[in-house]
């Protein structure tokens, strides 16, 4: 289907370009805003893959929670009087070699495995099935994650006060 491919390539291009600019721009506040566009692109990819509940969770938790927290951290620790210079101690040639090696291994592994794919059916709403799975098979992990979030909350609050 050509429309599906066009929309997928559009979201993939948004994600990859924004992620590239997150790590290469000099201003850290611009970097946080490019991260926002990356998260939007990732949400679009999730919707195209049929994961509607996870896409909305990504919007609410990642953009509405983690990104706002990151922006708080950036604004509170930014010196307004002078421009932040990015780190200049990058050795380009060994980094490029390592990245090219890793990417080559990944692409070779991708193209040479025989993927078993199933026939894609019509996308259903996944919320009901995910809720059933969470409370029947993965109930222990669910409760443990609740306890972990409580511990993280208490730890972060007690670390960040005077």
């Amino acid at each position, binding site marked *: 289907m050509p429309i599906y491919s066009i929309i997928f390539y559009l979201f993939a291009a948004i994600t990859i370009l924004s992620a590239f600019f997150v790590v290469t721009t000099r201003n850290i506040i611009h970097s*946080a805003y490019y991260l926002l566009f990356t998260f939007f692109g990732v949400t679009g990819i999730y919707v195209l893959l049929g994961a509607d509940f*996870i896409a909305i969770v990504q919007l609410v*938790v990642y953009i509405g*929670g*983690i990104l706002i927290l990151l922006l708080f951290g950036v604004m509170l620790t930014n010196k307004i009087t002078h421009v932040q210079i990015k780190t200049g101690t990058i050795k380009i040639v060994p980094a490029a070699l390592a990245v090219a090696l890793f990417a080559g291994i990944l692409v070779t592994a991708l193209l040479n495995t025989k993927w078993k794919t199933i026939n894609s059916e019509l996308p259903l709403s996944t919320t009901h099935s*995910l809720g059933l799975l969470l409370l029947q098979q993965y109930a222990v992990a669910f409760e443990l*994650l609740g306890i972990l979030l409580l511990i993280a909350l208490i730890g972060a609050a007690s*670390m960040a006060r005077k």
Partner: protein
Amino acid sequence: MVLMGIELVLNSANINFIAFAKFGNFGYQGQIMALFVIILAAAEAAIALAIVLNIYKNFSTVNVDEIDTLKD
């Protein structure tokens, strides 16, 4: 800056999980795993930001290259 890189890595692994949940033979387990990864990333971002605020209070910079008092 380092935190944003960590979020990028976690998001890319998440896309992989959900792609396998759609095209593989695993049911909805990939999406459950992606949900758990999102929750863990949120907890870890909160604690990492508390650490960053403490670093800023002690060193008055967040550039990790300038924090080298343990180096000889």
